[in-house]
């Protein structure tokens, strides 16, 4: 590879030496055209904000004339279903609808950025069903009018089997646009052997004894929530002043060298490799890590409280097969299917009846298989009790995009050091 030959000497000369001539005149006249070109490059948005709850005629309008097509394209996160996809095979057998299941969503921000142009242009994104978290982007999707209003007449199992808490979600009143796929808790995961004591409080994340061994989340919402909770402020209903106080508290933690780093999903591997001893964590991951790597990490909801978030099934407004998609959504609210899914993914199941179902199913198994299933059925991380729920807080709810941006700008400098 003759790299030095690739650089044309005359090109370098031209770049390093200023030459004047006719071309400059051309360039100047080009500038005028450039101005027009610049102005033409705006990024289109949806100026008007859609109402938080869909009007009844919006539902009728969207679903009118829509029929079953026999296939559905499903976008989900990795590790969110048994790799053998037994539930989907069952669904195809029962309904004749083929499912194209793709694990294409890794993070909410990039996913929104990826599909936003097509949705703005009213084009299909290639998916009829997508699972999105109740983060900033959920309201961005909703407020831009990118989500199809759900026809609850097509969701009988949801109506029958969903837990009460999953029918009145703050971020989507009346479940107008979404129904939960699974929920999870944000708490603290720790390695008891390293910390030498049980972790019970958010204050432990600020303990100088663990200098350089504490992991925090890079997601500003997760990070900000813990800053607020550590100061005894409920994230929901917190004000801009509260955010600043929380940011200062988090900055102290950082400048004292206590935080090793701010992690995305990779935190669980850093806990496994011993880089961090205690870290902000999502409930299901700890459960799966302990089973897959034979570890004994603990997960605790700190006494000051943790947060609960929900990943939601939604239909993009440009979906080609919405009827097939909503059929699949309701399928996961049949108790047997919800139980099978929760048994694999170990996140909070929105169907309470799945717990007794799982216990019954476990009764039919023997030995290790039975123990494993009972462990899930009895796990407070999969079926939290009322005591757990009372310690869990919802995310900050933002009135407007400008408020979100303020929140983001308050906490972002901490992560981006």
């Amino acid at each position, binding site marked *: 590879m003759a790299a030095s030959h690739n650089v044309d000497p005359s090109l370098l000369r031209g770049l390093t030496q200023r030459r004047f001539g006719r071309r400059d005149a051309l360039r100047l006249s080009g500038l005028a055209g450039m101005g027009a*070109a610049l102005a033409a490059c705006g990024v*289109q948005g949806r100026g008007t904000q859609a109402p938080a709850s869909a009007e009844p005629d919006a539902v009728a309008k969207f679903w009118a004339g829509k029929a079953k097509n026999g296939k559905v394209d499903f976008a989900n996160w990795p590790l969110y279903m048994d790799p053998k996809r037994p539930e989907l095979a069952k669904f195809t057998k029962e309904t004749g609808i083929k499912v194209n299941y793709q694990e294409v969503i890794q993070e909410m921000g990039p996913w929104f950025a990826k599909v936003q142009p097509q949705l703005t242009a009213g084009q299909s994104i290639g998916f009829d069903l997508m699972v999105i978290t109740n983060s900033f982007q959920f309201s961005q999707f909703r407020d831009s009018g990118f989500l199809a209003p759900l026809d609850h007449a097509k969701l009988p199992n949801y109506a029958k089997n969903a837990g009460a808490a999953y029918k009145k979600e703050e971020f989507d009143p009346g479940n107008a646009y979404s129904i939960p796929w699974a929920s999870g808790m944000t708490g603290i995961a720790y390695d008891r052997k390293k910390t030498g004591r049980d972790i019970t409080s958010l204050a432990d994340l600020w303990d100088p004894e663990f200098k350089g061994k504490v992991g925090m989340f890079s997601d500003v919402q997760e990070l900000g929530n813990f800053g607020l909770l550590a100061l005894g402020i409920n994230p929901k209903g917190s004000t801009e002043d509260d955010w600043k106080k929380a940011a200062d508290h988090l900055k102290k933690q950082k400048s004292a060298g206590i935080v090793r780093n701010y992690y995305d999903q990779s935190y669980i591997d850093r806990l496994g490799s011993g880089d961090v001893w205690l870290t902000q964590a999502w409930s299901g991951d700890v459960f799966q890590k302990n089973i897959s790597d034979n570890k004994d990490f603990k997960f605790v909801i700190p006494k000051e409280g943790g947060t609960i978030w929900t990943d939601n099934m939604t239909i993009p407004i440009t979906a080609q097969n919405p009827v097939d998609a909503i059929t699949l959504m309701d399928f996961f609210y049949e108790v047997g299917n919800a139980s099978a899914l929760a048994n694999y993914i170990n996140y909070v199941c929105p169907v309470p009846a799945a717990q007794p179902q799982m216990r019954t199913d476990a009764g039919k198994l023997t030995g290790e298989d039975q123990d494993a299933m009972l462990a899930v059925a009895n796990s407070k991380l999969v079926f939290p009790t009322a005591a757990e729920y009372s310690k869990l807080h919802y995310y900050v709810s933002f009135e407007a995009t400008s408020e979100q941006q303020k929140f983001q700008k308050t906490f972002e400098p901490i992560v981006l050091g």
Partner: protein
Amino acid sequence: MSRLKRKIAPYLLVLPGGLWLLIFFAVPMIAMLSLSLQEGDIVAGYRFTGHWQNYTDSLSAYQTQLIRSLIYGAVATILLIAIAFPMAYWIAFYGGRRKGTYLFLTLLPFFVSFVLRTLSWQQILADEGPVLSPIRDLGLVGPAFHILGTPVAVIGGLVYNFLPFMVLPIYVALERIDPRVVEAARDLYANPIITFRKVVFPLALPGVFAGVLMTFVPASSDFVNSEVLGSSETTMIGQVIAAQFLDNSDYPTASALSFVLMVVLLIGVFTYARILGTEDVMKVAAR
């Protein structure tokens, strides 16, 4: 007719490359320049308002990361020259019949994905990985000592990943040196050190310059090494730009930062070219 053809021919030759540049370089550049001067948010949309404050705001918010990136890039480039020059020198002058094999070995790591190679360093350098565990058990370092998350890990990753880009151009420059020139220096009683300093090194400068171009620029704007091997104390400007684009959909800030980075890098490279008098050495290389 044939005269006309002869006149058109050069333009036809440059057409594919020209179109390529126009479509995949010029158009995105103009779009990005426009974005950097827009205002709004992702839901309401961004509109062109000539909002130049995007530049001053983003620069004052992220100058630390920008300066840090340039320092990391410069340190990595200097280390790269120090490591790659002897390597290339040895292959060019002492490689013998196996030159091809040695060059292939230099390139071999490139057959493994960039991200995978960096991730494997994360495993190797982990606090309880194969390197640090024994050293700590021997009591050579304290219990809190770590490499991951420090500038050492990030710059080390940059050097490791960009090494072939420095070795190959220097090798090519050295390989082209006429052995008779070196012999002539010896005949004129120059000792090996003076021969190297006055003859070999100046002739290899074009290779070094090409190597610097191919390593300093991507190293300064890299966002993988710091993401994988660093911490929030080592955040580089590339990570900030990626986060603004992908996580926040804040296109104006990201575009403004990209332009600032580009301009700073161009200034840096051309200053360097001026100081070295690259024009002359390029002429020598082209001979």
